């Protein structure tokens, strides 16, 4: 049946700068200062090594279940590297390298992963929200922050992260729509790591890309090679600039891969093949960027070794100091902290009851 075609505005592009063979498209190479490039390398490697160490700590029972990031370091680091400290980061739970870049300490990650709330002590100077486990829910907070920034006529921006699975949640839809309507300075970064636990990207939605979903909200959408830190950086830089200058939001889909388990409680062998993982390992963002820096003459084998050594020490120190700190965190009464600005009477009663109980246990064990 013949009909009039409607011109739907918006196009979706794919951006790749440094491909999986380490080949660079010179024409697209972003202009990043050398110290920033080296800092990016440091945090890429830190993210990877810290992940490995956390997995071993978890296997030893020294921390609890956690979601590794290996393979996705470039997708989130490249994005946050374009932000100022006063900008806001609204994370999901798989952006550890980005959080470290933004100033979160390794100790705090360890504490949190070992079930201590103290792991989410956020310094007054930081504008980063704590990790958010309920998938997609944080997206709306980013929009609220963006609205507030705009209302206060500040030029800060907000960057929020989520996975491919999160795009199926209602909150994603409501958030993107609000961002379109209110033209908030929010950058939506989707780490499409191909899997939502056992659900492959292809079954999460029939849409060809996730980036194109932005068009439903008249928000620009772009898909980038998420294992190419230069492409991620370039796309984010453009989105941040656009948001900062009052032109609203962008959705960036970073095509990447979760190389490790979903969390340490997960067994990926149940749903994906070793071949698939091996295929993606060839596209490792770290290897690629290392080659780039070497080609550029910014990094030598010695330099790599020195960075590795520095990072090993940094991690070891963090593990030591976190485990030291945990010894002093034993007081169960602290669970009543931060429930409300002021503890209501019933909670005072409950806290006192627990205090008495703890005292009695203490007495009993003294006499026992």
């Amino acid at each position: 049946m013949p009909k009039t075609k409607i011109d739907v505005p918006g196009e979706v592009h794919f951006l790749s700068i440094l491909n999986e063979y380490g080949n660079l498209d010179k024409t697209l190479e972003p202009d990043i200062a050398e110290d920033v490039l080296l800092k990016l390398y440091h945090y890429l490697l830190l993210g990877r090594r810290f992940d490995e160490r956390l997995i071993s700590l978890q296997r030893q029972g020294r921390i609890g279940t956690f979601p590794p990031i290996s393979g996705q370091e470039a997708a989130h680091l490249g994005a946050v590297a374009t932000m100022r400290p006063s900008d806001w980061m609204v994370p999901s739970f798989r952006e550890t390298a980005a959080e470290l870049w933004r100033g979160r300490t390794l100790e705090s990650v360890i504490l949190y992963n070992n079930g201590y709330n103290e792991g989410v002590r956020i310094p007054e100077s930081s504008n980063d929200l704590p990790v958010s486990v309920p998938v997609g829910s944080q997206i709306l907070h980013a929009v609220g922050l963006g609205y507030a920034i705009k209302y206060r006529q500040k030029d800060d921006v907000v960057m929020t992260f989520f996975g491919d699975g999160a795009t199926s949640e209602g909150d994603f839809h409501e958030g993107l729509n609000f961002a379109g309507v209110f033209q908030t300075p929010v950058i939506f970064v989707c780490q499409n790591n191909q899997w939502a636990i056992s659900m492959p990207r292809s079954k999460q939605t029939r849409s060809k890309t996730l980036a194109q979903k932005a068009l439903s909200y008249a928000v620009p959408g772009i898909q980038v090679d998420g294992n190419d830190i230069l492409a991620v950086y370039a796309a984010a830089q453009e989105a941040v600039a656009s948001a900062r200058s009052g032109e609203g939001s962008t959705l960036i889909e970073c095509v990447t891969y979760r190389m490790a388990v979903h969390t340490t409680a997960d067994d990926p062998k149940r749903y994906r093949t070793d071949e698939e993982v091996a295929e993606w390992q060839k596209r490792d963002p770290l290897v690629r960027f290392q080659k780039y820096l070497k080609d550029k003459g910014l990094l030598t084998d010695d330099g790599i070794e020195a960075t590795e050594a520095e990072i090993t020490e940094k991690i070891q120190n963090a593990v030591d100091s976190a485990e030291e700190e945990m010894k002093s965190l034993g007081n169960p009464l602290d669970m009543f902290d931060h429930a409300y600005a002021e503890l209501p009477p019933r909670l005072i009663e409950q806290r006192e009851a627990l205090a008495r109980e703890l005292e009695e246990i203490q007495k009993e064990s003294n006499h026992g």
Partner: protein
Amino acid sequence: MAKMTMVQALNLALSQEMEKDDSVMVLGEDVGVDGGVFRVTDGLIDKYGDQRVIDTPLAEAGIVGMSIGMAVYGLRPVCEIQFSGFSYQNFHQIENHASRLRWRSQGRFHVPMVLRTPYSGGVRALEHHSESREAYYAHTPGIKMVIPSGPRNARALLISAIRDPDPVIFYESKALYRAFREEVPEEEETFPIGTSQIVREGTDLTMISYGTMMRPALEAASILQEKDGVETEVIDLLTISPLDDALFVQSVHKTGRAVVIHEAPGSFGPGAEIVSRIMEKAFFYLEAPIERVTGYDIIIPLFSRENSYIPSAQRIVRAAKKVLST
């Protein structure tokens, strides 16, 4: 002082707080140009502009999630969910975030937001427009649940809620919106959240209620006095959570008998907690089992039958007599 309906008094509270503090924002469906479907936000958009009085798209999780972000930034959003029957669409944002961002960030962030929403039946409304579900919120750690019972306390409590550093769910009785007028002073008045009030003194029986049910409760108290000379002490909770048990426990120490009244379904309702607190703190003063007069454990019927569902003064009198006769 002017005589105001509850709608007008709430409007006054919002307007005065917005005037005084430019971090106070109003958002929700139809709150701006339309002034809210019950007109509680009427005229605010003219006074404070559409940046501060925000007509949002039709998405409750969006409204509440956005409010959380605004509150984290340091604003004081007062969002409206058009009817409490549509606040389950945003329930995860309350449960997973609003209630616990202070705790989740170890005090770095907090969520000074107010969620206003009309509750209760009695106004011949459509399906899904008459529910009372304050128990959900009262059971949720990290938030406060407030229900005023008249123009003056509604105005004072709303100002306190806006200034409160923690998230407050603010239920407004549709049945009371325009039911009567009260003197409401022009100058600012607050009322401490977490505090209940004796609204009628008595020695024979304690009635504990809040919101819409205060009127039938007070009517029942009058009937009991007129017909039987019973002196009823009537307590208006005003805040459901944190629950001010001190006042009603003290009252029961004196009267030894109590009736708890609410419109929400009885089972696992707010009344159960009140009964339990009395059990805990005034058991040996009790002369008779406490009676609960509540909605039945069914969906509140469509409006032609809602009057038989909603506790009436007569039903309360009957329960009181039962308590008194034991």
